[in-house]
């Protein structure tokens, strides 16, 4: 599998994951691009599964390290909230923005492990891969995942 094939295979899922994780599309794409640049520069080799794991881990770490992501997100939400009037399309948009805000807050309320488990599972990571990513035994992933999903749902319904 060539580098470019890996890129095409992984990129959409990686961007989706990063956007969900960061909440800021620009910060997400910035992290994804940085991860691929590092993959190239550091001459990382291995099976496609390993490279995929490396990329997701790198993006996770990049996003975690960038404290400014949270500030940017707060600023974006704050600037988008006020709407001067409510024609039907604007009302739909507001409803959608409100939904996004609630999901975003529910996700942010989770601890890093729960959030990573949820988002990586959504991108098709196997239990074995999830265990490696968050540093637990594969046999405990089902339990952790069920708890993470329940916490997320509980946070969502509280909002």
């Amino acid at each position, binding site marked *: 599998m*060539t*580098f*470019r094939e890996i*890129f*095409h295979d992984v*990129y*959409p899922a990686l*961007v*989706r994951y990063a*956007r*969900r994780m960061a*909440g800021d*599309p620009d910060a997400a*794409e910035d992290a*994804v*691009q940085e991860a*691929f*640049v590092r993959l*190239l*520069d550091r*001459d990382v*080799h291995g099976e496609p599964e390993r490279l995929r794991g490396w990329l997701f881990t790198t993006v996770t770490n990049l996003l975690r390290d960038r404290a400014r992501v949270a500030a940017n997100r707060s600023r974006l939400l704050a600037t988008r909230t006020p709407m001067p009037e409510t024609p039907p399309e604007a009302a739909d948009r507001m409803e*959608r923005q409100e*939904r*996004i805000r609630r*999901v*975003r807050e*529910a*996700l942010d309320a989770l601890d890093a492990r729960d959030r990573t488990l*949820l*988002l990586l*599972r*959504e991108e098709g990571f*196997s*239990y074995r891969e999830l265990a490696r990513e968050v540093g637990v035994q594969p*046999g*405990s*992933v*089902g*339990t*952790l*995942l*069920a708890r993470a*999903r*329940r916490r*997320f*749902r509980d946070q*969502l319904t509280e909002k």
Partner: protein
Amino acid sequence: MTMNDRSTHPSEGSLQALADGELEPDRAVDVQRHLRGCEDCARHLDQLRALGDEVTAALESLDGREDPERWMPDRAWETIRVRRLDLRAHPRAQAARWWQHGAAAAIVVLLLGTGAAAALPWSPLRTWLSGHGTAEVLAPSSDTSPTEASPGSLPQPDPVGLTVDLRDGEMDLEVEALAEDGWIEIGRVDAAGVSAQAPMGTAFHSGPGRLRLVATGQPDQGPIRITLPRAVRRTVLRIDGQVAAVWTPAGLVLHEPVQADSVGGVLRLRRHP
């Protein structure tokens, strides 16, 4: 003990793994057998599946619908490639002079192979070239090098600054002109048999694992040619202190500011303006 015995209820983790298709086959058979006789566990499994669907739907609402172009890998590939160029470009006035000069002709040929300079007991090259056994034969990578994806989209290079010719695993580097005070360095060479030739006015400095060529005055016309043997496994090429290219068993990795174009089996490189 029957499968309906409370003590044999599968754990929530097992039910979740079953819902996610991640349970070991043998264990899955046992759990499914239990579910046929246990309404509580069957209901719990349904709840976990519904919860999973609910989480998926909630997370999908974050994905946004704006600017679908941003999700296209082709566009992103170019963005990343350009960004990589930008990240590595450190414009320097000195570097700009690299590709501009030419002069008259006398060429000094130095052979720095095992049979020439290294034969001198005081030569640093002796240290450099000794102790390196033969390694695997170089095979220019056609599909794993990060550069493979870009030649078709690169602008056509006009003034060729550096030519890399890969023939049967041997690598010939040719630098078209060396400006005054400009220098080129081949480093981390891990095999013997390196040869180089350069125009008059070029000084050679060598040390363990490296060779540096420096223009001591206005250089004469003519290229610098460096030939690396096929046994070389990893080489770093620096121009004016900047890494221009790294040759590894996986292929030639270009660093910036360098652009590449493959013509007739020869890779031509030029510095990014």
